[in-house]
């Protein structure tokens, strides 16, 4: 039994240690939450707006993200592409950023959000030991990105309800999914910050008369919805043709119908609650698998993991994996090619609403040159072309 004096001493030391630990980790958390990713927009961008321009409630909040608008010289259809729905899936925001930095639209309009749910990009998941940042090699140096989580930061939305009742369907979902940007569509005007963000995007879709909506994702190999395009029923022709063309020319990709009874997901709700056709792309990300080995930036970017491979040998995965893994260049390459092919198919089906783009590399080019090749040096361009994410 410790005497009173020793006990007091132990308590004092414990308090001091706790304060030191809080301060040191607090600095790390602060740096992560406040790190700004510079984006060099393509010289052909026509407007860079804020999401709050479409729903004022978001002004000056963490989720007031940039909206990059590219208009062609001729009128046509409008597509909205979003990355960063789940910031633990870097293939999505890297693809969106690659397109923003290189796109030229000749006909129609392309609208892009790189970090659709910024809040979720300011936190990593407790218990999963994610790195806070990852780095991409570019011809001019290393570019640093925030790693994030699947759910909005509890600092921005807390507490969670006892059970999450989806608006407006009334479907019961897991409590934490009230912070999951892909379970809160079509959003709620007076809801949580995540629901408000969905609502803002729905306003954007309406005001900008968006015809086609695309949501970029990555998935663990243990998850059945992988390497595929999930489509609202109004988009299945385009999704099926895109899948067929890509599978015969570049890489295998499937197509799935959006389940009508599963609510809150973009491929269901955007299609149901707006005029836009909604699609969702999934590419494989072994980093997200529970059987993964060492959790680090290397795994995040190379997608190489012997434990995940072993699980594959036991038939426990829904996508193949070998010693080459699933590098980030392959995952981003898949997304950009799928995007370009979808637009080609769109133009076939809706010639009056053509969206004609150029400047975006395809799958093989991204793999050959690396995704970093397509990012511009922020210090070499005029400041008005640099925006923070």
């Amino acid at each position: 039994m410790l005497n009173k004096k020793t006990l007091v001493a132990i308590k004092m030391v414990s308090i001091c240690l706790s304060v030191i630990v809080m301060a040191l980790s607090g600095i790390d958390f602060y740096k992560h939450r406040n790190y700004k990713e510079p984006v060099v927009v393509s010289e052909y961008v026509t407007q860079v707006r804020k999401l709050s321009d479409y729903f004022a409630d978001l002004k000056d909040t963490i989720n007031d993200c940039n909206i990059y608008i590219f208009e062609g010289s001729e009128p046509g259809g409008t597509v909205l592409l979003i990355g960063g729905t789940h910031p633990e899936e870097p293939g999505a925001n890297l693809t969106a950023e690659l397109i923003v930095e290189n796109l030229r639209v000749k006909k129609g309009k392309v609208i892009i959000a790189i970090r659709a749910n910024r809040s979720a990009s300011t936190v990593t998941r407790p218990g999963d030991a994610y790195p806070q940042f990852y780095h991409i090699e570019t011809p001019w140096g290393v570019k640093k990105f925030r790693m994030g989580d699947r759910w909005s930061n509890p600092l921005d939305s807390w507490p969670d309800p006892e059970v999450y009742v989806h608006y407006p369907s009334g479907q019961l979902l897991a409590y934490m999914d009230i912070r999951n940007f892909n379970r809160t569509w079509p959003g709620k005007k007076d809801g949580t910050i995540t629901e408000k963000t969905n609502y803002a995007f729905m306003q954007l879709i309406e005001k900008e008369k968006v015809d086609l909506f695309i949501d970029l994702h990555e998935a663990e190999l243990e998850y059945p919805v992988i390497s595929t395009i999930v489509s609202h029923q109004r988009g299945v022709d385009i999704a099926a043709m895109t899948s067929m063309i890509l599978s015969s020319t570049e890489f295998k990709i499937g197509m799935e119908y959006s389940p009508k009874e599963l609510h809150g997901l973009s491929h269901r709700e955007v299609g149901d609650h707006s005029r836009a056709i909604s699609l969702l792309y999934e590419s494989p990300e072994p980093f997200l698998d529970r059987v993964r080995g060492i959790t680090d930036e290397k795994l995040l970017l190379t997608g190489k993991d012997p434990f995940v491979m072993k699980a594959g040998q036991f038939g426990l995965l829904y996508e193949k994996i070998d010693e080459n893994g699933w590098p980030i260049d392959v995952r981003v390459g898949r997304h950009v090619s799928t995007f370009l092919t979808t637009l080609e198919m769109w133009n076939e089906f809706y010639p009056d609403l053509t969206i004609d783009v150029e400047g975006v590399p395809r799958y093989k080019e991204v793999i050959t040159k690396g995704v970093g090749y397509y990012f511009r040096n922020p210090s070499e361009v005029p400041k008005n072309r640099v925006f923070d994410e």
Partner: protein
Amino acid sequence: MNMYVYATLILVIVIATFTVARLFKLSVELSMFSAAIAAFVVHTRTLPIRHIVEGAFTYYDVCLIFITATFFMNILKESGAIAYMIRSIVKTFHRHRLLCLLLLTVVLLIPGALTGSGTVTVLTVGTLVGTVLTYMGISEEKTAAIIFLCAAMSAAAPPINLWAMMAAAGSNMPYVGFMGPLLILSLAGALFSMFYLGGKGKAVDIEKALHELPQPIEGMNWFRVMLPFAVLFFLIIAGRLWPFDMPILGLPLMFVISAGVGILVSPKKLKILEIAEETIHSLIPLVGIMIVVGILIQSMALSGARGLISLGVVTLPLWVLFGTLWIILPFSEGLLQYAVAPLLGVPLVLLFNMKAMNPIIALSAMAVMWPVGDSLPPTAVVGKATVMELKFKGRYTKFLRACLVPSLFILLLCTLFLIFSNKLSFLVAG
């Protein structure tokens, strides 16, 4: 170094550090913390403060629920509501043994069901119910066994089952749909334990029993007993009835509001700060272990050791698991307590999911098997609390022997739920 060898090395370091720390008489929590720090240091060659703090917050919300729910129960206990409830049951039903036992079982299930902790059941109602059981002619060791087993089942009972919540959170699975299977399993386990061990005996010696139980506080009545529960129930239900208009309170605030109602309707003035202090004091070991488990899991995820365990589990044949989980789960609980849920539970849920079994039924079955191990050494948290609170004078093994048959019944029932999980899918709701 090959990743298999490397992750195995980390696991060996974790186990060795834990064992040595235990040999040096460190508590389970400090031993686990030492093991986590060893894994961090070996893997990163530094002390990754951010990972330690981030891991510590893994079960932050669960801890808050745990603390506020226990505060709520303690308010009811101190206000005399629990004693009033038990005295009323004994007075009204002492001539109907079966009905009396049935109601006492329900009383034993409530605290753990609301807080997720068997210890809270033992501390709030265990002694009082134990007194009644003794005056029903039930032997000392059987009474202790009943209190422990019902406490274990109360921890397993919905709405709060910490094992299921932790494993579900780790597998990105909603903690939704567990109500039915958890309720059936925990209720069956508690009722079997109560009636197998206490079914036979003499009629309640009402005079002696009432004399032994705490005297009723003047002014206490059923309205005052039930109002805090009614408010809690209303707040939970209101979120479902008017989900788009009701502000999000969260379970911790709901428990605090209900505790506030308990304070307001209490016939005696409560020393709120003292109760709050006592609540935190009694929960330090349990909250401590939840925090440390998060840190340990973070260190193992970072270093690949968690992946190795997951891989080892998911590649096992199902028949091996069905044949051994009823032993592995209680003993691992005795060794690691709640840490087993994320460590073993998560890969098992993934495996069951991949094998097209119903993961909710399967996880519910496991989440009822784990608390049975809370009487097993080295930790034996709930078992030790039971024998201490009931002032059981016999050998601990005698108490364990009394628990044996009902424990085996519970484990068998859960194993059957595991095997026939798909056929029992209809139980999944809310």
